[in-house]
């Protein structure tokens, strides 16, 4: 699978579409259970994933991890450092880790995450855990592409939480106050629980649990593992799979269009950009309409 993923990861939009057309028929429909782990930089996402992944493996799952790190907007290069924090499970044959750069995306994911996850279906894995870039308030695209969103918070990040209330905080299915051995964890968990309760107005709605974890307490991750199972069961009973599939396809197509638009804009000559936005927009539309053919790049 490693090389198959690289083909998608490095592909232009034209190549991606070609790959998808070739694999559409034999691809199973949404079998991989997708878990997203998001939170601020330094919240402990990678370490938490390594603990979580070994729990999932104990359940008998084969787990893929897609860890996204930011691409430098200056050099386009990246340091993909999440794997170092996953040392403990790096050796496990039931866990596959792929580090990917965010490339042009600014939404906490990589601009081709949806296509990568698409390509991972049917590859002998039961679950995939997606680790976002360290995010702030509004980068919640992860919601669109995974089944269970785990938001990792730190004790004493109260101010940040206030700020997040209108964004990411509303998107989580499970809250984790990590590094709970630090002071302030109880208070933080209480604050979050108060807002989480308000979300469960609907009869039978999901009440997001608020957990506390600490890498000093291996057992604290068992509760996270169980909460994911509970959310999974709830989704199976309550969430319309067709609706989810359509929402994902929408996100994926949006991504393909905007990547293609960026490819075209980057290829545009400087003086073409001296025209009015409307003229450029129309020129771009014409180019988009002439769909990229196989091997035109």
């Amino acid at each position, binding site marked *: 699978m490693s090389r198959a993923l690289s083909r998608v990861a490095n592909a232009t939009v034209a190549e991606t579409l070609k790959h998808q057309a070739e694999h559409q028929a034999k691809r199973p429909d949404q079998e991989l259970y997708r878990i997203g782990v998001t939170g601020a930089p330094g919240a402990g996402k990678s370490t938490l994933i390594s603990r979580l992944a070994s729990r999932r493996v104990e359940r008998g799952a084969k787990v893929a991890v897609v860890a996204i790190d930011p691409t*430098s907007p200056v050099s386009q*290069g990246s340091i*993909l450092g999440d794997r170092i924090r996953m040392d403990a499970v790096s050796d496990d044959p039931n866990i596959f880790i792929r580090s990917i750069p965010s490339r042009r995306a600014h939404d906490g994911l990589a601009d081709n995450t949806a296509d990568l996850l698409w390509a991972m279906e049917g590859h002998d894995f039961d679950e995939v855990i997606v680790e976002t870039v360290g995010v702030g308030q509004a980068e919640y695209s992860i919601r669109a592409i995974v089944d269970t969103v785990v938001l990792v918070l730190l004790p004493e990040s109260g101010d940040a939480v206030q700020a997040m209330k209108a964004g990411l905080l509303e998107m989580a299915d499970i809250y984790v106050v990590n590094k709970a051995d630090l002071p302030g964890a109880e208070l933080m968990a209480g604050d979050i629980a108060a807002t989480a309760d308000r979300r469960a107005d609907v009869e039978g709605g999901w009440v997001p649990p608020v957990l506390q974890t600490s890498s000093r307490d291996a057992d604290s991750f068992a509760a996270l593992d169980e909460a994911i199972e509970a959310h999974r069961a709830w989704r199976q009973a309550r969430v319309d799979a067709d609706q989810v599939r359509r929402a994902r396809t929408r996100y994926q197509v949006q991504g393909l269009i905007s990547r293609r638009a960026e490819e075209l804009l980057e290829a545009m000559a400087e003086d073409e950009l001296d025209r009015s936005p409307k003229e450029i927009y129309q020129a771009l539309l014409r180019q988009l309409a002439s769909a990229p053919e196989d091997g035109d790049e």
Partner: protein
Amino acid sequence: MGVTLKDEIVAWKTDNGIMSLKGKRILIAKPGLDGHDVGAKIIALALRDAGADVIYTGLRKSPDYIARVAVDEDVDAVGLSMLSGSHKEIVAETVDCLAALDAGDIKIFVGGTIPADDHAGLIAAGVCGIYTAEMTVDDVLSAIDKELAA
């Protein structure tokens, strides 16, 4: 129009003839028992600044582990940073482990304290470049760039 940092980097890359590192995936690895990774980190950062996607293994990894990460991450090249004197054994094992995983096409370069007497042996063992502390970072980058473009 002011000159931005990005312009400077583009100019620097052009001056150094660096074209091919953008989008290349490179694993920087620390095999063996020495715990000094300043050099490895400097090279990792320089590669990032040249546009590569760089994965760092962390300290004290076995050749077997390094080879498996290289395959899972599907890198173009592995850079082994070694200051412990065990470079001959480590290189031979890493080459074997990569071959065993059907990944003999992944290039290996080495850096660190590698005595000149050992260079020919390492090249014969399958290493594509040897970059020692006497070289400037720019020279190392140009050399890696050339190797990966080939």
